[in-house]
């Protein structure tokens, strides 16, 4: 298929990989964080780690929107679906994420009307087709998906679809990155920057990383050649002592981002004072809520939600995985008590979650045992 398969060319990939050792200082280790879950997925799917020279290690970042939602938020959605007789529309991944009340998939099996959609516009269509029912779209994601939720809410208002509302759980990329960079237990050498977020916010929005923390960033596409090339660009910056934001994903990303998308977000959302993140705790000004002007379509204002803070299960180490402190396989329940089919933590649910990607794709890499 054009425009994607070209970026999966194995011969080109091996060629790129062959250039990497020359950029690596012998004996030095390089910890590079891929921020976005989409990159984590591509890295495991194409076995990219196996192509990297010794000493270059990829650390999985917090950019999986399903993974960073706290359990209390999942409980809110389940309560809405079970007790308020609404049609709850959500992305497929969300249906298997466990809250303290089980999952949305289980709620559905017990009679709740939960429907999987691929786009918020599908949820709006459900509302149009069911005028006698309340339809709530469980909106998740970083700046990547927030504009499509914003446009959907705008359309709901313009068309007067009164039975449609949104449980807004959109989050922002900068606060968790700052939280990671401020934390003492993680040392990183550079970032493979999130390409899809950058299409909206612009590559310039990552300028704080070199400026405030002296780490290089390369905003990357999601095909395996994109990721390999970004790693090469990062290693080249480190080898030559440069530290700046570069764009590898030039076919999509600009420095300024998408002004119309940003304007739609500005109009429809406002900043929350605080938002609870799984693994990172409460981060100030890190998430969006529906603005006053669109309050008629805000599920939080329309329904009474528990809004309770629920601690993660004690055995779950998603927080440490999300902060890149441990690798997925180092979690004490990885692959035994926690599997994609029966997940304890959210990182094991979404294909973009580091644990799910590692479990599904990566768990065969068998190094020889040295005792």
């Amino acid at each position: 298929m054009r425009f994607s398969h070209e970026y999966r060319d194995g011969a080109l990939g091996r060629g790129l990989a062959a250039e990497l050792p020359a950029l690596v200082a012998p004996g030095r280790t390089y910890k590079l964080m891929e921020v976005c879950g989409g990159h984590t997925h591509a890295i495991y799917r194409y076995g990219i780690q196996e192509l990297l020279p010794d000493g270059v290690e990829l650390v999985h970042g917090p950019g999986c929107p399903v993974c960073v939602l706290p359990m209390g938020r999942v409980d809110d959605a389940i309560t809405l679906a079970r007790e308020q007789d609404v049609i709850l529309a959500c992305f497929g991944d969300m249906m298997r994420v466990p809250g303290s009340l089980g999952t949305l998939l289980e709620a559905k099996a017990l009679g709740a009307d939960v429907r999987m959609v691929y786009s918020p516009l599908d949820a709006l269509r459900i509302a149009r087709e069911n005028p006698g029912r309340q339809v709530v779209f469980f909106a998740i994601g970083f700046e990547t998906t927030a504009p499509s939720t914003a446009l959907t809410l705008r359309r709901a208002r313009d068309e007067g679809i009164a039975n449609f509302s949104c449980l807004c759980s959109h989050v922002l990329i900068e606060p968790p990155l700052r939280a990671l960079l401020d934390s003492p237990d993680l040392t990183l050498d550079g970032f493979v920057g999130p390409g899809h977020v950058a299409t909206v916010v612009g590559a310039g929005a990552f300028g704080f990383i070199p400026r405030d923390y002296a780490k290089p960033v390369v905003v990357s596409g999601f095909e395996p050649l994109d990721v390999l090339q970004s790693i090469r660009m990062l290693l080249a910056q480190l080898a030559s002592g440069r530290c700046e934001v570069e764009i590898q994903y030039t076919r999509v990303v600009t420095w300024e981002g998408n002004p119309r998308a940003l304007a739609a977000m500005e109009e429809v959302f406002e900043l929350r004072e605080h938002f609870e993140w799984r693994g990172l705790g409460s981060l100030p000004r890190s998430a969006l809520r529906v603005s006053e002007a669109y309050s008629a379509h805000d599920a939080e204002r329309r329904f009474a939600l528990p809004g309770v803070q629920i601690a993660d299960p004690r055995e779950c180490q998603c927080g440490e995985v999300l902060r890149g402190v441990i690798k997925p396989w180092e979690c004490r329940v990885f692959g035994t008590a926690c599997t994609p089919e029966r997940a304890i933590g959210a990182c094991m649910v979404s294909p973009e979650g580091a644990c799910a990607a590692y479990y599904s794709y990566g768990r065969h890499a068998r190094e020889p045992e040295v005792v």
Partner: protein
Amino acid sequence: MSADAAHARKLRIVQAAHSKPGRFRDAHITMAHGAGGSSTQTLIEGLLLPTLQGERLAELADAGTMALAGGTLAISTDSFVVKPIRFPGGSIGELAVNGTVNDLAVCGARACALTLSMILEEGLDAVELRAEVTAVAASAERAEVEVISGDTKVVERGHADGMYICTTGVGLVDARARLSTAGLTPGDHVLVSGPVGSHGMAIMLARGQFSIEAPIESDTAPLWPAVDALLDAAGPDVHCMRDATRGGVASALNELARASLVGVVIHETDVPVEAAVSAAAELLGIDPLYVANEGRLLAFVAPTSAGAALAALRAVPGCERATDIGEVVAEPEGMVLVDPGFGGRRVLDMLAGDPLPRIC
């Protein structure tokens, strides 16, 4: 212990947990239990097998077999609840015949008789019913099998989606066949009889949920001609065949790797997929290897006969794009690996969850 050793040790623990028969601990049935992936497997291994305790059942072949005086009888049964009941390339009536004759075919048996049981919903349009009965008759004629018994039930409106069909088929296992789910042998080549994923993707788009229009048709077809050609070309060197239905090629390979205690390596870039299926799968974020087929088989053939088997398969109408997509290896036991053509390798696990409910 070094980090690498700790890693290897943990992976062994994980793999041991993964290979254990599933325990059925769910409080309720969810759609995932019907998706043909790991939840279905847990339901079978954790509830059905231990309760029913049949030795032949435990082989988990597509059809059960029993020795009779004149040969070996194969029996298979299948229910069809597909929604919508008509879709590009086929309908529930056609599936109900092909699904069951194919389960027999991949066990080396040509179907000789079918039973047909229909559950109809109050209010079903008689025109629709007539069309499906006609589709059953036409498909049975194409597969050269006779419907010799049947049953009809009607349930109240709202208790069935139009109609459900259950068919049971019997046939005699061909004298050329030496097939077993435990028959995969290191060195065997893995053949697939044509492009994969078309049926499941046709159904998904036919539901009109995604506003994607693409010229994708179900691949539903009887597989006996392909089986016949393979047995003619390679006879006992065909060690196993599987109809890659729910859960797709990936789940079928995992079931067999587990049953035969071998590994399987698939070369992803060799797997045939129709361009439109590949594009739709890409848009929906689904791997075609997990998408259902209703007229595609996997065959595991000894290396000396693999070339002849592939040539014979390609000469069968509808199987022109049959391909050799991988090989059976001794290690890692019970695991399927994919070479994505990019240097590294990845695991190809059973389907987890339920991307596509009610496809057959």
